[in-house]
């Protein structure tokens, strides 16, 4: 079977869509992180806008609700001087039976230059990227369980900010990894940037053995998983897991896998604690840790705007 070209890159290896961190060359990744640093300093100016996307229309196409993520993309696009249109698809024509591609075609006819898409099904942004006109760019804001690349990038930025050197780190990801696009993107980012030890921590129903194929060490014991870790990423536990016979209760999850101060003491003294948000206090993380000195959860949000500005300006500047 002939190799398929990564749809995110043009023929010159430049990024034209951001669909997943997987398959991105290392230098593309580091360039986005470096550019994010620039935009972080723009965020500290009085005039926080730059004209890079002026005149461009960015359509936020969220098939899955998320006010937080959508808002950070909106802020990022506006800081690049783009016009932003938010589409809440659950209440619009798609629920009347219009297909995904028809929705895209209609919006493209309204001169959309960039689609930021969040969809419940893995792979949806790839289908969209295959069908948009050459000058239109697609950013994946989360597709099913598959990827959340801007979150992965901002997580990498956060780690780089606090830890500098990836090559010596131990990173533990705790929680519902099998259903987590955040975890998958983080794992890919960490691998590309050369992190030697990535641990996936959780019960067998949420962290199955075949995750090892992604290059992680599977741990079913939290203590073993976070011992001597430099970075702990706690994932949100969703209520649906209880109904799918994957877990008996949130309380039981917290008993074995909740990030408490006592457990965190097993990690390195200068370990940082991350979480993609929103946090469930008392489920995956307790308040003392979430609000404590190790937590970098709020800086992650600030970095997220700069990273999204970097992603959008990078892809907008590259032709298909």
């Amino acid at each position: 079977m002939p190799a398929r070209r990564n749809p995110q890159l043009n023929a010159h290896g430049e990024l034209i869509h951001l669909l997943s961190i997987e398959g991105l060359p290392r230098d593309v990744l580091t360039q986005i992180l470096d550019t994010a640093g620039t935009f972080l300093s723009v965020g500290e100016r009085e005039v926080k806008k730059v004209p890079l996307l002026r005149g461009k229309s960015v359509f936020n196409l969220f098939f899955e609700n998320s006010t937080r993520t959508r808002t950070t993309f909106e802020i990022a696009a506006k800081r690049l001087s783009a016009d932003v249109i938010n589409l809440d698809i659950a209440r619009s024509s798609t629920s009347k039976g219009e297909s995904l591609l028809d929705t895209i075609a209609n919006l493209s006819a309204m001169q959309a230059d960039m689609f930021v898409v969040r969809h419940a099904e893995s792979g949806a942004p790839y289908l969209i990227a295959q069908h948009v006109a050459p000058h239109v760019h697609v950013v994946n804001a989360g597709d099913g369980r598959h990827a959340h690349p801007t979150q992965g990038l901002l997580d990498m930025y956060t780690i780089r900010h606090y830890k500098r050197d990836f090559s010596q780190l131990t990173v533990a990801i705790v929680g519902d990894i099998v259903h987590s696009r955040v975890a998958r993107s983080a794992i890919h980012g960490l691998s590309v940037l050369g992190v030697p030890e990535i641990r996936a921590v959780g019960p067998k129903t949420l962290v199955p053995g075949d995750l090892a194929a992604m290059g992680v060490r599977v741990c079913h014991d939290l203590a073993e998983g976070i011992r001597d870790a430099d970075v702990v990423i706690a994932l949100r536990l969703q209520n649906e897991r209880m109904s799918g016979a994957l877990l008996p209760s949130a309380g039981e999850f917290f008993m074995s896998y909740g990030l408490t101060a006592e457990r965190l003491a097993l990690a390195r003294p200068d370990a940082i604690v991350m979480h993609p948000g929103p946090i469930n206090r008392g489920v995956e993380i307790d308040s003392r840790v979430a609000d404590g000195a190790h937590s970098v959860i709020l800086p992650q949000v600030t970095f997220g705007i700069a990273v999204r500005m970097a992603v959008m300006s990078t892809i907008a500047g590259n032709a298909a």
Partner: protein
Amino acid sequence: MRILVRGGRLVDPASGRDEPADIAIASGRIVRIGRAAQPLEFDAERTLDARGLLVMPGLVDLAARLREPGREHEGMLESELAAAAAGGVTSLVCPPDTDPVLDEPGLVEMLKFRARKLSRCRVFPLGALTRRLEGAVLTEMVELSKAGCIGFGQADRAVRDTMVLLRALQYASTFGYTVWLRPQDAWLGGGVAAQGAVATRLGLSAVPVVAETIALHGIVELVRATRARVHLARLSSAAGVALVRAAKAEGLPVTADVSINSLHLSDADIGYFDASARLVPPLRQSADRDALRAALADGTIDALVSDHDPVGADEKNLPFAEAEPGATGLELLLALALRWGREQGLPLVRSLARVTCDPVRVLGDALGPLGGSAGRLVEGGVADLCLFDADERWTVTPGQLLSQGKHTPFAHASAGAPLEGRVCATLVAGTVAYERGSRPAGAPRPA
């Protein structure tokens, strides 16, 4: 019409013949098969020049969806039977999951009637095992059998109630009917991709191997208990193959088939969420594929099927998990059978058996008198033939396919699927059902 097929190399897996021989056809039957390399003297109204071609029995495909009843307004039966003929398929079995389901004799009769009128390919419908395939109430199997059903099945819908399944097998075996079952557990089989590194990486809901093996264990137990004949449709895993091998070794009356997709591809072929690779059963890992290839070679798996399903673009241009499973296959079956045979190092009489006489053996008595000559070339038998060029390389692109189903995991977007081996002409009951680049009757083939 009196037809002479001249100068071809005859390959008949049933008898093991593989030698140059002419074939004389009259009144829809083979009247004479020549001696090796001795031209036949026959007064023909039409001569088909088969020099450089192989002449084999028409292919017998045990699984091809025609989507009729249901899609009459789209001309499905016409296009799909034309596709069958273009693929060299002269007999096919279609599953009962039509719309409405094939659980009424009238629907079966109508389907057979319409197919007969088109004279392209013989259609042998499978009847529904339970009403509306709901797995609760038995269908009138005797009536359906009289109407033309050659067996009974549930297509892809598992019977959840084991009591019903047991009773269905008992009832069917009373009359010697074969029950066709997909070994897939109802609850475990809900995912869209095979469990493994690819599904994990792509974040797709997974179907574990135990979905197949648990179902197989259950089916084998029921066969032991009822001695019903069961045909296992679409094996997909090495573990499944092992269970079937053991069941056959024990002498249980089971047969099995595998699709062209599972035989050649793996989950890696999903690539970047290519919905053409959205299939039931899902494509598994290469170790499973290797086991399926070996099993088809040693006879554990009896037949290779196209598993043809003309899924439309609207149903495929969706995110992977939402896309309808299925792929076009009738026009690829022969080339892919040849490819498998070549890669396994098998002679043509062995590899082509899996798409001719072996599927006929699976159908058993259900074919009635036709069973004596379907899937083979025998004097006095039906003149269902396929003439093909085994070496011709061609690329399957949507524009070339006669089927309305244009999606196949063997093709990469616009690049098409490269294949070796192409049908030149197909005869059904002594009538030319398909001829490539139709030439005026009697004109010689260009050199």
